[in-house]
């Protein structure tokens, strides 16, 4: 029955596609809001200008990307062409066989100086967690912002300050999941960065991290959507919050909120493109990706949002903000001044421990 159903849908889809053979519709799924807008300006608009037969349809459902890609692939009814995913989700999707493997040097454009793509993207970013289904666009970081009017005298400057309720009293906001929070708790508790995951691999280590989090538990507002922490900071609901650096930049530079960045132990993550298995028009998808991930395009995106392009060759091309005219380089998480104490996030370790630690974390949270 399922086969009958899906083949009917596929047949209907084929019939529809045949009817509009001239124009190519590409459904590109992203996060909506300012992020999709930056992609629209940096990638979509120039691509459509150069290719009159291509029509790009934005779908803002990336937050549900993993589940929906799985549903589409399992029912043989793939309507999405390209999906924006964070690296951790891409690893899961790749493991599950839901997204296509990528050959960087045939799919992606080389750098202007001829360096092949496989060497021009930041090392390891094309194969997070050992998978090879992911095309990175940007490096973003999850880091802290704090209200500049909250504390007299010293302002918070290290990750330990986040956990220091005496010196820096007030509510905090953290993401409602174990990832990053457990690492930061251990780092604040004095664990050396290199030992964090080894510590967390033991029950005692997890309990140690939770015990550190216990010291601020009553004062934490837990966020689930990226838009929440900048809002909480802007409203004065919290004095410190973990957030995506681009969201904080927007609150600081575009909305002039009294917020400052705390870059210590920022956690890099990658956001990029994946292609669902069974995509209808692979050639059109590849043509778009070749264009949209080249050196200039990635550098262009940084004009509209403060995330760092994932290519070495793009970094020197990052210019000024398109509207504000300020130099974007110091606002990039990859800027040397910001990246001095980055924490190396371990995708593989989390793929192993996510299921278990979700339960542990949620139990701790509920009690």
């Amino acid at each position: 029955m399922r086969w009958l159903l899906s083949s009917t849908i596929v047949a209907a889809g084929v019939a529809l596609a045949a009817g509009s053979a001239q124009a190519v519709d590409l459904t590109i799924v992203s996060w909506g809001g300012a992020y999709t807008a930056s992609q629209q300006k940096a990638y979509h608009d120039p691509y459509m200008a150069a290719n009159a037969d291509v029509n790009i349809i934005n779908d803002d459902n990336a937050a549900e990307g993993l589940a929906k890609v799985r549903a589409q692939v399992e029912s043989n009814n793939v309507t999405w062409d390209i999906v924006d995913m964070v690296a951790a989700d891409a690893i899961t999707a790749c493991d599950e066989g839901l997204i296509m493997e990528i050959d960087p040097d045939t799919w992606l454009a080389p750098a202007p100086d001829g360096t092949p793509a496989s060497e021009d993207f930041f090392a390891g970013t094309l194969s997070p967690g050992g998978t090879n289904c992911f095309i990175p666009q940007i490096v973003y970081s999850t880091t802290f912002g704090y209200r500049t009017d909250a504390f007299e005298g010293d302002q918070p400057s290290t990750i330990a300050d986040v956990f220091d309720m005496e010196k820096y009293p007030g509510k905090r906001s953290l993401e409602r999941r174990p990832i990053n929070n457990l690492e930061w708790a251990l780092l604040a508790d004095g664990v050396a960065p290199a030992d964090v995951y080894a510590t967390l691999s033991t029950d005692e280590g997890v309990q140690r991290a939770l015990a550190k989090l216990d010291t601020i538990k009553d004062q934490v507002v837990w966020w689930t959507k990226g838009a929440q922490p900048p809002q909480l900071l802007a409203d004065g609901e919290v004095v410190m919050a973990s957030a995506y650096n681009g969201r904080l930049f927007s609150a600081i530079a575009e909305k002039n909120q009294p917020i400052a960045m705390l870059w210590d132990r920022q956690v890099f993550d990658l956001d990029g493109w994946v292609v669902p298995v069974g995509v209808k028009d692979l050639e059109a998808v590849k043509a778009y990706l070749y264009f949209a991930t080249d050196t200039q395009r990635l550098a262009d995106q940084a004009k509209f949002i403060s995330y760092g392009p994932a290519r070495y060759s793009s970094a020197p091309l990052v210019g000024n903000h398109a509207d504000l005219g300020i130099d974007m380089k110091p606002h990039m998480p990859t800027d040397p001044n910001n990246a001095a104490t980055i924490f190396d996030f371990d995708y593989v370790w989390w793929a192993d421990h996510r299921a278990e630690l979700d339960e542990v974390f949620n139990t701790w949270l509920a009690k």
Partner: protein
Amino acid sequence: MSTAADDTLRTADGVPLKTSLRRATARRRVRTFLLVVPILAFLMVTFVFPVVDMMFRSVDNQIVSSVLPRTTLAIQSWDPGSEELPPEFVYEALVLDIQESFKDKTLGRAGRRLNYEKSGVMSLFRKSGRRAKRITEAPFKDQVLAIDERWADLETWQLIHQESSALTESYFLSAADLRVDYKGEISWKAEERRIYLFLFYRTLWMSGLITVFCLLLGYPIAFLLATLPPRHSNLLLILVLLPFWTSLLVRTTAWIALLQSEGVLNDLMVFLGFISDDGRLQMIHNKIGTFVAMTHILLPFMILPLYSVMKTIPSSYMRAARSLGASPFTSFVRVYMPNTVPGIGAGCILVFILSIGYYITPALVGGRTGTFISNIIALHISETLNWGLAAALGVILLALVLLLYFLYDRIVGVANMKLG
């Protein structure tokens, strides 16, 4: 009915009356059926299939045996209770399975499946997939053990043995904070991982309280709606329905703006001197937030069934009760209220069922202490992709709803329920 042919009632031209009647009504029955075909098909596709599919996913375990067919077959001859590792031929089967599934890109799925039961299997499989390519000849066991020492761990093999069958109970056990070991013995999970029963419990009691709040707030409104002259009641009805015209997110965000500690309500109370600036009340990102926002969102679902029942209660009932000597209060309690029971039942069932399934609102305003089991289900659906566990949690939730519905039927009677 008589079997003798002579006794059969016949029409004027000798056809048995029953046959004739059946023919005469056949056309009508076909037409009736055709009328319901579209909705039937719609329900099958959008409701029955997904529910059945979900139920199946909660026990489906074919992924392990389909990715590791040789291994799961070979390991049947091994006793998981023995203190020894499986024999050489099991390792040989494993190597062949891993090589094949690594090429097909299916190894990761089995790894993720087994990783739910034991952290680390995921990376063990991925690592083994990359390295097993090189193994081409015996001894397989030694070479596999050389890849990763976890292949020498009895627990790894016990797990594969345990999850070899096509159906599994482990999702359901996990959803009830239980685990099963290779011996088939069921035990509680470690205490710091027991979360689901607690969340079920919290979901139920908070939803129950939300239902009570909706009833307490909605009953007077519904009474007003039903008794006011139409000119006023229409306006009131529009006010009641107004929340439906705004999106859920907007309403929820509005509650945040109202209730947060730097929000409108706290500002007002500080301004009026009820509380000090340092003593602002925490009314959101906790249970209170969930209660307030959910009660507000679900209130119309209580008011409308109540209103539709109350509208049909003639005003003469109350007057009759008064004329018979009952005070206004007695008249209301003894005569009016019993007649609204169908509406109370319908409203409560509706609100309660909607409440235990809500997840957006609790996620945004519930904070640490005001989130529901549905938030965890959503996490497993869209983030961890553990659909088996999500399905098991969903089936348990469904069973709870059916159980409550059954209890309601026994106590009040479903026939006594009126949705309008």
